[in-house]
């Protein structure tokens, strides 16, 4: 049986070479179903994110109360590049969530920066 990490590295390799994401995921799904490991799907996806980060591609989700300005996006990119020296490409995905009130939450494989007002208030026990 191929380990999750090996599967993720294989998929990340294919994706960085330029293979279509839908094709790679379809093949992966077929393998997981065939080997009765469909319950590992989410873990495999997260491992792929890790593998892509190791190869210099950071998939970053930014959650904020309002749409980010181009300056803010650039700042986020800069932050990711400064924290992970190997990163060459930053792929940003924006999420609007008014419940965070203010600030941003930056999430990528294995790391997070939460500067939202909601979290700060929660930490203060308000």
């Amino acid at each position, binding site marked *: 049986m191929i380990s999750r990490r090996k599967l993720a590295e294989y998929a990340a390799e294919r994706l960085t070479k330029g293979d279509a994401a839908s094709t790679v995921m379809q093949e992966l799904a077929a393998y997981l179903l065939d080997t009765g490991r469909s319950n590992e799907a989410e*873990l495999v996806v997260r491992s792929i994110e890790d593998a892509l980060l190791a190869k210099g591609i950071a998939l970053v989700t930014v959650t904020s109360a309002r749409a980010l300005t181009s300056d803010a996006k650039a700042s986020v990119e800069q932050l990711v590049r400064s924290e992970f020296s190997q990163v060459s490409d930053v792929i940003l995905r924006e999420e609007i969530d008014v419940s965070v009130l203010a600030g941003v939450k930056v999430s990528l494989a294995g*790391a997070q920066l939460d500067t939202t007002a909601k979290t700060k208030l929660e930490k203060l026990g308000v």
Partner: protein
Amino acid sequence: MAELQVKELSGELQAAIAGLSQSEGLESAGVVIRVGDGVAWVHGLSKAGYSEVLEIDTKSGVVEAFALNLMEDEIGAVILGDDSQVSAGDTVRLKGVVLEVPVGPELLGRVVNPLGVAIDGGPAIKAKQTGKVEREAIGVLGRKHVHEPLMTGIMAIDAMFPIGRGQRELIIGDRQTGKTAIAIDTMINQAKQKTGVVNVYVAIGQKLSKVARLVERLKQEGVMDQTIVVATGPADPASMLYLAPYAGTAMGEYFRDKGEHALMVYDDLTKHAVAYRQMSLLLRRPPGREAFPGDVFYLHSRLLERSSKLSDDLGAGSLTALPIIETQAGDISAYIPTNVISITDGQIFMETDLFYQGIRPAISAGLSVSRVGGDAQTKAVKSVSGHLKLGLSQFRELASFAQFGSDLDADTKAQIDRGQRLTELLKQPQYQPMSIWEQVASIVAVDSGSFDGVAVAKIKDAQAAMLTKLQKDHKKEMTELNKGAEKVEKDSAVAKLIEKTAKAAAKGFEG
């Protein structure tokens, strides 16, 4: 007062804000993949250490857990609290510390849970210090041999299986044989004899009604002021039961490291092993004998190794342990009992048969042993009790044979008669620990044959009469004897005085 409170609040708020503003920059984060039965599986956090505390951001606030299974891309973490608040997808962060509990004198007289949170309805505990729940035991050079007595006040133990400060003495037996009673009496004796030893009673999965009764009794006896109770009930998660003895030990170690003396009572390690088995099976660790995981020996050995007598350089403090193990139908060869027997420095074995015969404490003279306590026994008790264990064992053997026939030679009959009186003498009601002089005088009285004419049923009455007389008429000698520093030779003045008083006291109780 109001101004002070505002100032305090202001300070706390400033500190909280400062703490929040420090965390700029990306920090390691994982995500809960699945959760259930008190265990959360976390993806990510590759830098997590064993036993490190994790913070799970749930919808209803932060829930703490600690990492126990570190795998290639997953962490098995045991949740400290209500697992129903945690759901898949929750973010998990490293706290950067291993689990710690508050320690210090602020905990004395309190009932706390394994996280050090008060559960006795009293004010919140504001301890100045914290102690690591998991801590390495003191090394060889930091230790000294066990040489000071830890008097239990139970004559059968202090005379035959003496316990020293820093020793680990197992109390083992079936259910309802008086195991906890021995531990409680030992705690009470520390207060009655003003030894200054701090008691830490760890209730592992005990019925909370039992713990409440125990606390009430300790208060009545005036012992609670020097006692910490770490309580977990059957309804608590297995993680709490698992942590309880380690947390209690951290609280005891505080006093040991200050050069003081502490006594740990783990009631009981059977339930602790069962809680750990539950956690291990839920963490999918491979089951071994009786479905316990492979490291169940290490679970208890690393706990009990923390009990020690420290060297003079480290302050000469001590941590004594009285772990309790419950057996099934007297089977001491089961997995957990044999493990703990081999870890400890001796065991006090409680027999169901003796208990129902009315011989209480129901201590088996044959199966009980104290491996290191001999050096710690007070000279006075040691000088009069040397042959006691052998004599009692031989008597019980002879008595079992004697019941098949009535033709006994004079020597055997005398041995049985003496044994019956000794057995009667060693009976002791609960909550009535005896001081050193009371123990010495009682043993001398029977050993010298002063009570040979007393009816077996009246031995306790004769003993009480003798002790009252000694206390009343010879207080000075008994106070000196109570120091226990001098040997009591057969021909010594004290021995003769006791014999004389015993013979006089025996007169009213001939059978």
